[in-house]
């Protein structure tokens, strides 16, 4: 089975200019494969290297060593991003545009025809329940609505792989539930979802497989059930054991 997302011996070093030649290793020797139709949870405490890994996958940060591939194409090639959708951790969109205009802009980058663009705009806005606010400027949206417009832009090209960075970060319980429902729906449609999250309960609910990263190194990876059996506990307990945290109380 061909992996649609693959990391091969990935290493990312950040040079600290203020301190001369010293550098910090953010990710070290990471090997990972994600297959079609999977919902894959990418876990780790703050500073573990999750966002750095996503940045390499999306071409924002170059790898110091090793390589990353999307659909078998090296991520340094923009064409590798043709079949993916990306939702950043916090919502960053042009606030002077309306949701409709934003989606039209991104659709143009995917070279969609006008008719196809309109069809997809209608479909994704219906999915994220933003039809009534489609002509309002994004600056007037609540945080939850902005997160949902983010999901809409990530889905505008009907991606085969969705990369979500903390998709429920900072949302209220209702907002989280809506995002979770959308992920579940995408999973049912056979989409591949790769997402980083701190919400272990949520990950346990929707993910087929998970990987746990700690200090830039992959500590564990596998099916949620298998890991639970191996470490004798739920995902939260697995996570704490894997990163070496021991509660003495």
């Amino acid at each position, binding site marked *: 089975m061909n992996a649609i997302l693959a990391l091969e011996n990935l290493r990312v070093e*950040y040079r600290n200019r203020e301190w001369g030649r010293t550098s910090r290793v953010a990710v070290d020797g990471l090997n990972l494969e994600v297959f079609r139709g999977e919902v894959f949870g990418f876990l780790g405490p703050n500073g573990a290297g999750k*966002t*750095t890994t996503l*940045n390499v996958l*999306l*071409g*924002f*940060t*170059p790898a110091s060593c090793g390589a990353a591939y999307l659909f078998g194409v090296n991520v340094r090639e*923009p*064409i590798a*991003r*043709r079949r*993916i959708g*990306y*939702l*950043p951790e*916090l919502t*960053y*969109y*042009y606030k*002077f*545009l309306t949701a409709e*205009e934003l989606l039209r*802009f*991104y659709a*143009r*980058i*995917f*070279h969609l025809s006008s008719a196809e663009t309109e069809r997809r705009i209608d479909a994704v806005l219906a999915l994220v329940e933003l039809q009534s606010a489609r002509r309002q400027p994004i600056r007037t949206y609540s945080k939850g609505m902005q997160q949902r417009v*983010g999901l809409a*832009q*990530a889905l505008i090209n009907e991606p085969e792989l969705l*990369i979500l960075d903390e998709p429920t970060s900072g949302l209220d319980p209702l907002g989280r539930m809506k995002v979770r429902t959308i992920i579940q729906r995408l999973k049912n449609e056979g989409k591949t979802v790769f997402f980083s999250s701190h919400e272990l309960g949520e990950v346990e609910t929707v993910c087929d497989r998970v990987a746990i990263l700690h200090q830039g190194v992959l500590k564990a990876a596998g099916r949620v059930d298998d890991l639970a059996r191996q470490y004798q506990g739920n995902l939260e307990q697995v996570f704490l054991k894997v990163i070496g945290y021991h509660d003495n109380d």
Partner: protein
Amino acid sequence: MINAWAVALVVIKELYRRKDFYVLFILTALITLMLGALNFFNDRQIARYLKEICLLLIWLSALAIAVVTSARQIPAERENRTIFPLLAKPITRAQVVAGKFLGCWLACGLVLAVFYLFFVVISGSREHLWPLANYFQAIWLHWWMLAVVIAMTLLGSVVFSAPSANVTISMLVVIGILLLGRHLHQVALRLTEPGQTILSVLYFALPHLEFFDVRDLIIHDWGLIPWSILGLATLYAAGYTALFLTAAWLVFRRQNLN
């Protein structure tokens, strides 16, 4: 090209939804009012003097809009983090730079069109002279001069981290070239080595923006510039624009956006 055009449309949309466009209209209205005083005392000298002031205002306003608009493009994308969802799409950094340039240049073209339209209409209705070919040459060269300025400022925006520093430096460089550019070689000839060589190299390396300042063509109703010269000036501006944009891309493509 489609990707660059998509980025350019967002730049134009941003410009007319921000306050800049309203400032433009206020300035245009001011220019219009000044032109209303044309033929004051029925003195042709005063009319020319006022035309000169109006054109200077147009030049300064267009320059300010071009520099301020282009200086904030890429830094604002990074600061607001809108660059991340954008670059996660199948778009290259070269296309982003090209789109930003195209958007700023077309927006400045619209600004120039509005300014000169008012100027032409009011000046023409007062003086009953319609030297449209002269106006075309002046606007055309002005627009190409702005292309060089925008490309240079975009390069500055990927080199300097603060947009304010970039605006100040770009403005100083542009005004410096406009005021002193033509005299550099004469000054160089009076210097001893190595100052003479350094200043001569600078003279030949700098884009001579003053070549594009043909306001006198309108103020004094001078004859047309030969069209071949106009063509060469266009190529000269296009060359420098391409050079600055390539440099901007080379710097931007290596930048770590994390």
